[in-house]
């Protein structure tokens, strides 16, 4: 099955397909396979190389794997208790079910799962480099047209319906467009330019594109998640820190609020004390609680995590090393494009969403889904969005009918309102990070500080929409800067609106959860951001009326 391609006209290369998948991580892979199996001609366009792109490829990720034989409703109920009351058990249950089917498919396809101590195949963990390389071969085998190094810059619309996307090739900057019956945004979360492994491409492109098409974002206040890493490295992987003890610069034990030696840095009760210690000064760690076989399992099971130590020539089980907490943005946070329909439609005709680009409030709630729920969500939402997009494309008929009425709709970073000045992308990155990265502003939040941050970024947004633009390949950089800035403004707006503490959103001026039904904050924009408050009580009322 090939996709139609026409010869370049005025320098723009045109392609055509039923479904365009934007992105190159696991959810993009599953969406492409799913749409292809539903009979669609699929194009997958990735900013980088499909197989190494995204947060999963450099990682080793667990999944939320619950076999049908286990009491799934009970497992879901227990996990729901940890979602700060925000998640929806119906979505959790169907995610468990669909992702389990995906894991079985992987086994049937021949993915090399390990065996557990009983000799049974262990399907609840995926090794990133192997998993994503494997998915690339499956997607190619499904007949999908894969476009590597083809960053999408903007969506195409006929005024009502999303009809494709436009982008450039790297590194030369040639223009291309894909006219499609439906588009799946699987562009990942926004890491706010944090230099963590897998985050280079995670600039919130999908969030800005969806907002420009009129879609709402939700859960954007849940960006207060941080993960430990050896200082100055890219390895924000929490698991080994389960066995860490923490020390000050002189090697004295760091004490928690009860005077006990601080240990276990994977979250939980010690987290706030570690944060406070890091705000106060440098913190050192040693994985000294990992003894015997645990050391071997860490070395063999987490070879990516071992790289900083190998390369520095230190033994993390016996030597002290400095650590930092890396902000996770919406990657291990839960905010993203609001999912409006069971097949991951966004509410905008022709536009679907999958993986970390989507809000994961339904499955992870107000706490992080990183490392387990998010990877299951990638499989499940990828599958559903592929089904939804192919069905929509079929209902709509051939792309030729509407293509002539379509136009690109991107603004910020591409089409400045006034003269183009050389706005420094690094300066934008630093300005954004100053507001959303520091523990003192973003782990512990307060209304006045959030309002100040938002005001500064609103001023910057005004300058960006007025002046930021570029020619040729540089458009990718300007567009990424605009996307990160837009994502940060959405996050700050939602954080300001939620006047309570819930999950990873911690307001020092509103400690504790607010009374009454749990609210969600749906945002539209991207220029003047509108906040719509939604609660379960409202929905029940709607149904009644």
């Amino acid at each position: 099955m090939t996709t139609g391609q026409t010869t370049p006209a005025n320098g723009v290369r045109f392609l055509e397909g039923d479904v365009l998948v934007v992105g190159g991580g696991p959810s993009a892979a599953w969406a492409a396979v799913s749409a292809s199996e539903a009979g669609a001609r699929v194009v997958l366009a990735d900013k980088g190389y499909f197989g190494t792109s995204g947060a999963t490829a450099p990682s080793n990720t667990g999944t939320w794997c619950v076999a049908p034989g286990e009491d799934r409703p009970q497992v879901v109920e227990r996990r729901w208790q940890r979602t700060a009351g925000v998640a929806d058990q119906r979505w959790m249950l169907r995610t468990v079910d669909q992702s389990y089917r995906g894991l079985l498919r992987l086994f049937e396809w021949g993915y090399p799962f390990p065996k557990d101590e009983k000799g049974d195949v262990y399907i609840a963990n995926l090794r990133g480099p192997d998993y994503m390389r494997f998915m690339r071969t499956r997607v190619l085998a499904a007949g999908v047209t894969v476009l590597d190094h083809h960053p999408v810059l903007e969506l195409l619309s006929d005024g009502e319906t999303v009809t494709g996307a436009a982008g450039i090739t790297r590194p030369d900057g040639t223009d291309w467009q894909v006219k499609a019956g439906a588009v799946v945004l699987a562009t990942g979360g926004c890491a706010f330019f944090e230099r963590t492994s897998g985050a280079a491409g995670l600039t919130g492109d999908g969030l800005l594109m969806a907002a420009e098409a009129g879609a709402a974002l939700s859960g954007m206040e849940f960006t207060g998640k941080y993960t430990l890493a050896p200082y100055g490295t890219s390895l924000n992987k929490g698991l080994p820190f389960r066995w860490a003890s923490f020390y000050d610069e002189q090697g004295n034990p760091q004490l928690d609020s009860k005077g006990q030696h601080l240990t276990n840095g994977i979250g939980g009760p010690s987290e706030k004390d570690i944060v406070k210690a890091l705000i106060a000064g440098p913190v050192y760690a040693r994985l000294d609680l990992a003894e015997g076989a645990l050391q071997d399992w860490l070395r063999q099971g987490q070879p990516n995590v071992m790289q900083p130590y190998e390369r520095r020539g230190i033994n993390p089980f016996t030597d002290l090393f400095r650590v930092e907490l890396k902000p996770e943005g919406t990657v291990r946070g839960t905010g993203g494009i609001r999912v409006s329909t069971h097949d991951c439609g966004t509410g905008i005709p022709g536009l679907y969403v999958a993986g970390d680009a989507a809000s994961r409030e339904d499955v992870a709630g107000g706490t992080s889904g990183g490392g387990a729920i998010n990877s299951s969500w990638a499989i499940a939402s990828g599958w559903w969005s592929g089904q939804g997009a192919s069905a929509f494309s079929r209902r709509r008929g051939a792309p030729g009918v509407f293509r002539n009425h379509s136009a690109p709709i991107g603004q910020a970073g591409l089409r400045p309102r006034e003269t183009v000045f050389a706005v420094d992308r690094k300066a934008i990155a630093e300005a954004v990070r100053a507001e959303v990265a520091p523990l003192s502003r973003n782990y512990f939040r307060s209304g006045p500080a959030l309002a100040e941050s938002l005001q500064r970024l609103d001023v910057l947004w005004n300058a960006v929409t007025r002046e930021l633009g570029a020619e040729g390949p540089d458009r990718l950089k300007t567009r990424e800067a605009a996307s990160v800035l837009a994502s940060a403004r959405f996050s700050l707006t939602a954080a300001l609106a939620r006047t309570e503490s819930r999950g990873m959103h911690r307001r020092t001026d509103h400690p504790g959860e607010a009374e009454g039904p749990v609210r969600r904050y749906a945002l539209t924009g991207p220029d003047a951001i509108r906040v719509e408050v939604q609660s379960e009580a409202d929905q029940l009322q709607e149904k009644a009326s």
Partner: protein
Amino acid sequence: MIEVISDSRCIRCDICVRVCPANVFAKDDQGLPIIARQDDCQTCFLCEIYCPTDALFVAEAADGPIGITEAEVEDRGLFGVYARGLGWSKGRANGAQFDTTHYLRVAQV
């Protein structure tokens, strides 16, 4: 961050140019990969494991180069260190079947 491309190890297959998710590499006139956009590197080490001859070295510092030389990488046996840890060899994937992470998941609770 990517710091070393070994001329003597490199066979000019240009796999690194293709697979880098951040598009860091380019080819020079002789077809040799060069580090063209070092600051875009996300320190994911994936170019190393895709390289069929272990000709690349990514230092662990994510914010900027530390200036490590090819000689030091060679002396310390660091070429291919991540690939060996995973069980990948000559740019080919292998070893996921021996992943021990499930023991850690049991032990972490």
